[in-house]
């Protein structure tokens, strides 16, 4: 990759060597045993995108099978395994660790002006746990896979002959990875903030990672014990969830969703944080409603623990509970909407630049709004009875998970790519790919809203002839998505070799990660930093010669405390 002797654009990293975190230390072991948060982040990124590819292949196989009713390319049993694996891989291996572990790990210490996260060894342990968990999951897929759906609902999961134990064991280990990352972020934000950065001078991405981390720490252990009980159920027969042994399968559903609903916010909160950063930078304007966005992140984290029962409306839960959970579910709409309106208000009368990251922001706003609003149909009791377990639900959560989280993740990758690897990608192909993803996504999933409201049940192998046009449109959409991702993989990899050298601050962000070299040196900063207003875009001016944004007052971000130990 980037040669050591290459000319360095930035005045900051004027060190004679031009060393950066990618070139400090050579060989695979220097990566596998690194304590550098940036390297751990890159390893996470590679592995997580690999999982995304795997989950995507499963998705394309599912869509291909659904091209026609009955058998198209696989048997019903294989199909059941395919949708289970698509869900399990995408949720546990890709989307939950996705933004915090891959992007958060890189950006969080940089935004704090710190040299690393507070607990670097734990950070590495988190990555190793991910590797171990992913390996167990892959072994499980090879030895027989699972056909329970990614939720592992009892009693089917205690009776099916597929590899439930190894898959849940994998998810259990992955839980440790998630807990360690979250715990580390909370500690880092508490103890490593630089001089001058009070809580309300933190970039909003850090607020969102903080609230995400709270959920990771509080909810993941409950999934851990749930999966452990499921494993004990299958291996020992403890009967906690088995009605034949005096247990209660609905208790499993309560346990499972007590984690898995907050987990939905583990996925979306960091995505919202990315949007808050990007929308300000690419509108050339201070973020609107900073405090409200920060508080709303915390509010969403708190509310996330109070709504799990809306997954159990049809499971025989009492009517009173249904009403309470339904009402609490609606309250989540308030902080979410506050955020969306704040982003729109940030764009209002801004100097909007339609660079690739901003295209993802616009996609996000559009798709997340649809995803959020359709959530209200599922949160209200009467309509949910009709829509429960139909494609409407599938479309809804894909609009939130893909249209929200994945789109923001992609926006974040494009935004921080120059910082991570010191290279610019092809803007032209990035825009083409962003547009194709938007079109392909809507074609794939909007049709599913229609199908679902007409009664097409989810997870079915076969379907009535009348649904055929919708299924075929959806499948075509998924192929467009596949092509768009191939284009993206090509131009991103190409940029690593042939890409233009990235300046220190190509977009004009005022947060601290843009105040160091691209890519940063191993210890992140040459000076001790201070926390200034992260949205003071006007403190920067564009330097035409280098294509770089520089501070009008270059000394302002360095700590005046020199030499004190």
């Amino acid at each position, binding site marked *: 990759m980037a040669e050591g002797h290459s000319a360095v654009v930035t005045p900051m990293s004027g060190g004679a060597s031009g060393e950066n975190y990618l070139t400090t230390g050579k060989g695979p072991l220097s990566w596998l045993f690194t304590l550098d948060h940036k390297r751990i982040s890159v390893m996470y990124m590679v592995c997580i995108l690999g999982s995304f590819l795997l989950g995507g292949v499963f998705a394309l196989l599912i869509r291909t099978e659904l091209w026609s009713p009955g058998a198209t390319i696989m048997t019903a049993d294989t199909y059941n395994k395919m949708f289970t694996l698509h869900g399990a891989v995408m949720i546990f291996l890709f989307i939950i660790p996705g933004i915090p572990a891959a992007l958060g790990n890189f950006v969080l210490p940089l935004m704090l002006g710190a040299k690393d996260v507070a607990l670097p060894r734990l950070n590495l342990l988190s990555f190793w746990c991910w590797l171990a968990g992913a390996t167990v999951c892959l072994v499980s897929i090879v030895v027989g896979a699972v056909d329970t759906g990614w939720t592992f609902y009892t009693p089917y999961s205690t009776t099916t002959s597929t590899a439930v134990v190894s898959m849940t064991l994998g998810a259990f280990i992955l839980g440790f990875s998630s807990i360690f990352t979250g*715990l580390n972020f909370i*500690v880092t934000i508490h103890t490593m903030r630089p001089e001058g950065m009070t809580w309300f001078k933190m970039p909003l991405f850090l607020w969102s990672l903080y609230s995400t981390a709270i959920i990771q720490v509080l909810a993941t252990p409950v999934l851990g*014990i749930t999966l452990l009980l499921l494993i004990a159920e299958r291996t*020992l027969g403890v009967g906690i969830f088995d*009605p*034949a042994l*005096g247990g209660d399968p609905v208790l499993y559903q309560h346990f499972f969703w007590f984690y898995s609903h907050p987990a939905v916010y583990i996925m979306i909160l960091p995505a919202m944080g990315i949007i808050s950063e990007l929308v300000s930078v690419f509108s050339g304007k201070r973020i609107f409603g900073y405090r409200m966005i920060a508080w709303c992140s915390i509010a969403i984290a708190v509310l996330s623990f109070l709504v799990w029962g809306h997954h159990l409306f049809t499971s025989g839960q009492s009517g009173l509970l249904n009403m309470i959970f339904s009402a609490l579910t609606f309250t989540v709409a308030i902080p979410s909407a506050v955020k969306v309106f704040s982003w729109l208000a940030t764009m209002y009368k801004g100097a909007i630049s339609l660079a690739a990251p901003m295209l993802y922001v616009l996609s996000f706003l559009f798709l997340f709004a649809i995803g959020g609003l359709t959530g209200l149909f599922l949160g209200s009791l009467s309509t949910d009875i009709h829509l429960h377990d139909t494609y409407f639900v599938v479309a809804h959560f894909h609009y939130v998970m893909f249209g929200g989280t994945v789109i923001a993740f992609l926006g974040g990758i494009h935004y921080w790519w120059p910082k991570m690897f010191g290279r610019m990608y092809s803007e032209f192909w990035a825009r083409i790919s962003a547009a194709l993803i938007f079109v392909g996504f809507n074609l794939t999933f909007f049709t599913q809203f229609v199908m679902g409201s007409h009664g097409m049940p989810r997870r079915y192998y076969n379907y009535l002839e009348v649904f055929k046009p919708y299924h075929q449109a959806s499948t075509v959409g998924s192929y467009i998505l596949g092509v768009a991702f191939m284009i993206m993989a090509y131009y991103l990899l190409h940029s690593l070799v042939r890409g233009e050298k990235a300046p220190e601050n190509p977009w004009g962000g005022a947060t601290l990660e843009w105040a160091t070299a691209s890519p940063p040196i191993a*210890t992140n900063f040459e*000076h001790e930093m201070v926390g200034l207003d992260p949205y003071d875009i006007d403190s920067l001016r564009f330097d035409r010669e280098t294509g770089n944004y520089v501070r009008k007052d270059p000394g302002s971000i360095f700590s005046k405390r020199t030499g004190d130990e």
Partner: protein
Amino acid sequence: MAGSDHSHHNPDLAHHFENMDQQRQSSKLGMWLFLVTEILFFGGLFCAYVVYRVNHPEVFVFGHHFLDKTLGAVNTVVLICSSLTMAWAVRAAQLKQRTILMLMLVLSFVLAGTFLGVKYVEYSHKWHHGLLWASRYAPDAHILAEAGFEVPEAHVEEAVSERAEGAPAGETIPAIEALPVDETTPETPLDEVADPEISKIGPAAAGPAGLATAGDRASAEAERHAVSVDPANARTFFSVYFLMTGLHGIHVILGMIAMLWLMKLTFQGAFDGGHYTKVDNIALYWHVVDLIWIYLFLLMYLID
């Protein structure tokens, strides 16, 4: 600048921290957060305990007769003493008293081992009498009689014979089929009234439990009075008992490993400089393990 900056720093200070205070705070906060996850981890089991106890109190009243209160109390005292020695160890580390620190760590380790020894005695007693988790639950007549319970003869006979025969050659029966209760449990009135004309769906083997029967007050009331016999789903108690104490036992073992690690560090003189954070953190963990046991003792042994 960055290179020479740290040359005369404390060697215990990691490169990314500004001073020891920041490092200590980070490590301490990390440990507290980890303990929060531990509490939530056990919280799931406590939650299961509450659900089953509220819906089937008779099962817990029945089950607790088979736990040895004396041994439980001894173990509680043992663990509380080990908490004391761990706290003392922290004090010794703060005061740089290497010998006392070592002594306290060894004492804590021995007390933890004693706890596990007593637990082994309890477990093996239950193993011998078939007082095990759901699918292996098959108490022998003596142990039930000893505790003052009458059990329908057929129930015991069947249970014993099925266990004695073991699985028929080559045939792996699913755990559920090997259960003795299926036919004899008093809780299957549905069985009698079921009219094949009306429903072709067989009744559940033991009737639903847990949340689902919360509304079924009448039968719960009836069961509550009939504590002189082995109540339906008594097995649930032993499932919960083994899960909770087993998981706690694993945490005790992890604590003992951590103590060994501290002993090694002490031997190497790692705490001679007064940087006691590691001892402090392990002690915090140990207190939580202790605390969880106190709850287990109250909730499992001291029902009534």
